[in-house]
């Protein structure tokens, strides 16, 4: 299986990326190269090997369930392109 330029366009759409025809050609090519390399990896025998999700084996760190409220909500709101009261405002969705 290889990736067509349609597949690449679809994936770009999901990521909200607008690509020119030239970029689309380049990325289609690169995605196929990545897929081909994955095909190389598939030749390895991994039957009895547990999938590796991380190279560390400590497990994720956990925090105690304690509330410590952040104090600069106003600073976070400033990052929004539009704000009304203490709400972020987004344009029409549908």
């Amino acid at each position, binding site marked *: 299986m290889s990736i067509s330029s349609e597949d690449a366009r*679809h994936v770009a*759409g*999901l990521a*909200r990326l607008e690509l020119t025809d030239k970029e689309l050609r380049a990325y289609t090519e690169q995605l196929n190269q990545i897929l081909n390399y994955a095909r190389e990896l598939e030749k390895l025998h991994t039957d009895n090997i547990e999938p590796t*999700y*991380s190279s*560390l084996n*400590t*497990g*994720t*760190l*956990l*925090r*105690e*369930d*304690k*509330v*410590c*409220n*952040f104090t600069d*909500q106003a600073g*976070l*709101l400033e*990052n*929004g392109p539009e704000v*009304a*009261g*203490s*709400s*972020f*405002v*987004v*344009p*029409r*969705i*549908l």
Partner: protein
Amino acid sequence: MTEYEAVIGLEIHTHLKTKSKMFCACSTEFGRPPNSNICPVCTGQPGALPVLNKEAVNLAIRCGLALNCTINKKSVFARKNYFYPDLPKGYQISQFDLPVASRGFVDIAPADGAEKRIGITRAHLEEDAGKLVHQGAEGIEGATSSYVDLNRSSVPLLEIVSEPDLRSAAEAKAYLEKIKSILQYAGISDANMEEGKLRCDANVSIRPAGAAEFGVKTEIKNMNSFRAVERAIKIEIERQKQALAAGRQIIQETRSYDEAAGQTVSMRSKEESHDYRYFPEPDLLPLLISEDWLKQAQKELPELAEQRIKRYQEEYGISAYDARVLTLDKATADFFDTAARLYAGDKKNIVNWLTTDVLGYLKNEDLELSQTKLRPANLVEMLGLIDNKTISGKIAKELIGQMLKTGESAKKLVEQSGLRQITDEAELQKIIQEILNANPRQLEQYRAGKTALKGYFVGETMKRTKGRASPPAVNQILDKLLSG
């Protein structure tokens, strides 16, 4: 005509009862002003990193155990990628191929059939999204803009997925109620649908009865109460039957339940369907759950409704039916337990008052027990007043209404309103004699053999004493005076 059977599976999302959010220390408190519980992590600021809440994992383990699941010693978080304004990171941290709990079951007792075992496919941890408040229209349709409140963003959720084992809307409702009961009794979640702490989507398909293959399914969303779940599923099953009967095909799609219109409506989705491109969350290592942790969680698993029903029958001799009524709502069962500890008399007295007067009042007023001012100690005090004959059961029936409304102590109410029972024999005898004197005709008829008139004299006595006369004393005195 082909007979069809429905095949239903539920996805239940429940908020976990933690103080802080899933991946940051912001409060999970409900009802605060917009964006007061936010920080760089739950608003998706670049570079902010998630750190997992231990209690969220603990509650997920507890839920897995209560649902008879296997708890996976190693589970993995994954990114579910999609764009929506309530999702600041552009992905939801969830679990995909390795959830925290898998393969369990619960037994349900639906209203329309026998007890049945429903499989649980999995339960996985994930974070909630923010809340959108649409402007310029009732809902998203026609809105000119939307306000984004991220207080709910990253509040811990557990998604519980059932096997497609449910065959009717009534079974789906019974299953949902069972899950809610487990969540509340085990202290996992408030499981309150009104506050959105319990949400439910249904996968519904139909197939010719007895067929092995599944039909094409639709996913029903936007069901905001237990009744809505039952009705929406019923309506969707009917819609699918009619479509097939008319020779149309069922399209796999998401449909929204419109309660006012009593129908399910196809949802326009701008998102490419279910192309979430899951991949392991690189910001979190796998979640490892030790044998010790598991043992601890097992030990801490609270008493569930089933166990309480059994205990009430064994310890207090309460009927199976009453025990079930008492445990339908955890708050009622907790109320009963406290009252039973405080009350020295027969615990069945508590049951009688709770299941008739108190639950009747709640039903009439459409209230929860916790919304009233009645406390176990007050009820027990009132029972004591009945037991020592200070008040009659009839007076108590009036009192309990006031106690529910005002939270006033029974003793105080009795003193204030002079409802104390008249048990003094001389006083009663005087009153009754006056009544007999005032009704010579009835007295004559009684003595001529019309003994049913005794009820008339009892009624007159009660009227005169405003219900305060002790009924056994009245009976005794009447018998004496009537026989003249």
